[in-house]
């Protein structure tokens, strides 16, 4: 944990120049955050639209001080869950508590929970600064904070431009500014990197890690396993509205990736028989390479040497995280290309 925190801190304070200058020193340190639990509790949450079940008896807890990834294929119920968390949707059953309270009962919610919604919730004809200004006034946040978050998100130079002309990256920065406006201890981000260029992705990733290292609760949804592996420390994986995994990223990788040994040899059939004889599960790919599951490269080499087989290559192939993710959610995907009807 301490190693993680340390790393996250160094990330946060590494100077990054992405579009505008990213500077985390404008954010207060963890010590100045109100001493609340900052925990998000999802209890037996269900939501159905007509006959379609979007969220099915979902329960998990999101803890402060780390980035928690909320992962699932498209249509798994991530956005629905986040909408319920923000009181934008009413659950069919169960509840979500933030600091032990329903979101809708929080008196000045922007100072408790910051949210980045997938689509920009701003009027195109309004200037960026004015959008933040009405939000600040609605929650009695001092006007000075608007300039602060504009600087923090690198939007100072476009603060007086109308939102209509914003690029996707700028809109996302405005969304981030909205989320940070109340300096909240709990942050919810719905697909924050979706559609962004590598610079934008890096910026958001660093920002989220910085916020978590300050002791905030950061809950971020994504359908990209690889992105979450780089950003999150903890994972909540759902499919078809049901909980599939609630684990650390390291634990998820260890439990869900199977490595195999790839072997190239001029005599693949003989090699296959030798390995099969030794009890190794082996498959022959069309290009003539063999893939042995769960075998050590040393074992393969020794078996080949004992039979006098020529081996050109023995390599360990790690199954990718995406593969692991797809294996886990495979049964829970609604519309798979060429899959079941």
């Amino acid at each position, binding site marked *: 944990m301490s190693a993680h925190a340390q790393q996250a801190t160094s990330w946060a304070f590494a100077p990054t120049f992405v579009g505008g200058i990213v500077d985390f020193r404008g954010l207060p340190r963890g010590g100045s955050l109100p001493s609340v639990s900052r925990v998000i509790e999802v209890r037996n949450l269900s939501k159905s639209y007509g006959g379609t079940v979007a969220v099915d008896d979902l329960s998990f807890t999101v803890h402060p001080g780390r980035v928690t990834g909320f992962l699932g294929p498209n249509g798994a119920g991530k956005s629905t869950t986040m909408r319920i968390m*923000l*009181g*934008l949707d009413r659950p069919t059953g169960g509840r979500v508590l933030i600091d032990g309270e329903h*979101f*809708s*009962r*929080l*008196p*000045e*919610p*922007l100072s408790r929970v910051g*949210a980045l*919604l997938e*689509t*920009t*919730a*701003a*009027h*195109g*004809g*309004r*200037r960026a600064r*004015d*959008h933040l*200004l*009405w*939000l600040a*006034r*609605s*929650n*009695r946040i001092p006007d000075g904070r608007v300039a602060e978050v504009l600087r923090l998100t690198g939007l100072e130079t476009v603060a007086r431009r109308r939102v209509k002309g914003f690029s996707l990256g700028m809109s996302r920065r405005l969304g981030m500014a*909205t989320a940070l406006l109340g300096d909240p201890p709990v942050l919810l981000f719905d697909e924050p990197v979706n559609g962004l260029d590598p610079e934008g992705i890096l910026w958001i990733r660093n920002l989220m890690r910085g916020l978590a290292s300050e002791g905030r609760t950061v809950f971020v949804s994504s359908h990209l396993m690889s992105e979450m592996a780089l950003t999150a420390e903890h994972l909540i994986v759902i499919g078809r509205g049901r909980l599939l995994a609630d684990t650390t990223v390291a634990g998820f990788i260890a439990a869900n990736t199977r490595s195999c040994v790839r072997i190239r040899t001029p005599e693949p059939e003989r090699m296959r028989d030798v390995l099969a004889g030794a009890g190794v599960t082996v498959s022959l790919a069309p290009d003539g390479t063999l893939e042995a599951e769960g075998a050590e490269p040393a074992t393969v080499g020794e078996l080949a040497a004992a039979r006098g087989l020529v081996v050109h290559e023995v390599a360990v192939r790690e199954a990718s995280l995406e593969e692991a993710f797809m294996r886990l959610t495979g049964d829970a995907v609604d519309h798979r290309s060429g899959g079941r009807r």
Partner: protein
Amino acid sequence: MRAASAALRAEWIKIRTVRSTGWTLLLTFVLCAGLGLLVALSLANGFDRMEAAARRNFDPVLTGFYSLTLGEISLVAFGVLLISTEYTSGTIRASLVAMPRRGLFYAAKVLAGALTAAVFSLLTVFATFFTAQAALGPHGVSLGAPGALRATLFAGATSR
């Protein structure tokens, strides 16, 4: 109460930071005062040619306010845009996250819009009155004429 005034302040900023507010209110003013002026000018011009009965029944206040019904249309547009753009732009999500108490939010929105319209209507109606009465020349009346002030205030109150 603090939450209510905060919500009201937020809604006031929303009103004054979109261009549609300026356009719809300007249009209202131009229609009311401008058409009021034209109607008054043409009547003042043709007054002597009017029939005796029409001249006897001539109501300078009502004449000056013919234009209000037309100007009201764009004031209605102001009100409709105020609510509908919340939905078309997606601002409603930000609004409800910032102000999760639905009743409070909608009340603040309606009140902010109504107050803006009321103050603006009053200004417009007085401007229309003075413009039209001035244009009517000898046939016009002053605000001190019987019923004139009352009519103007009510016109202002009802035209929102």
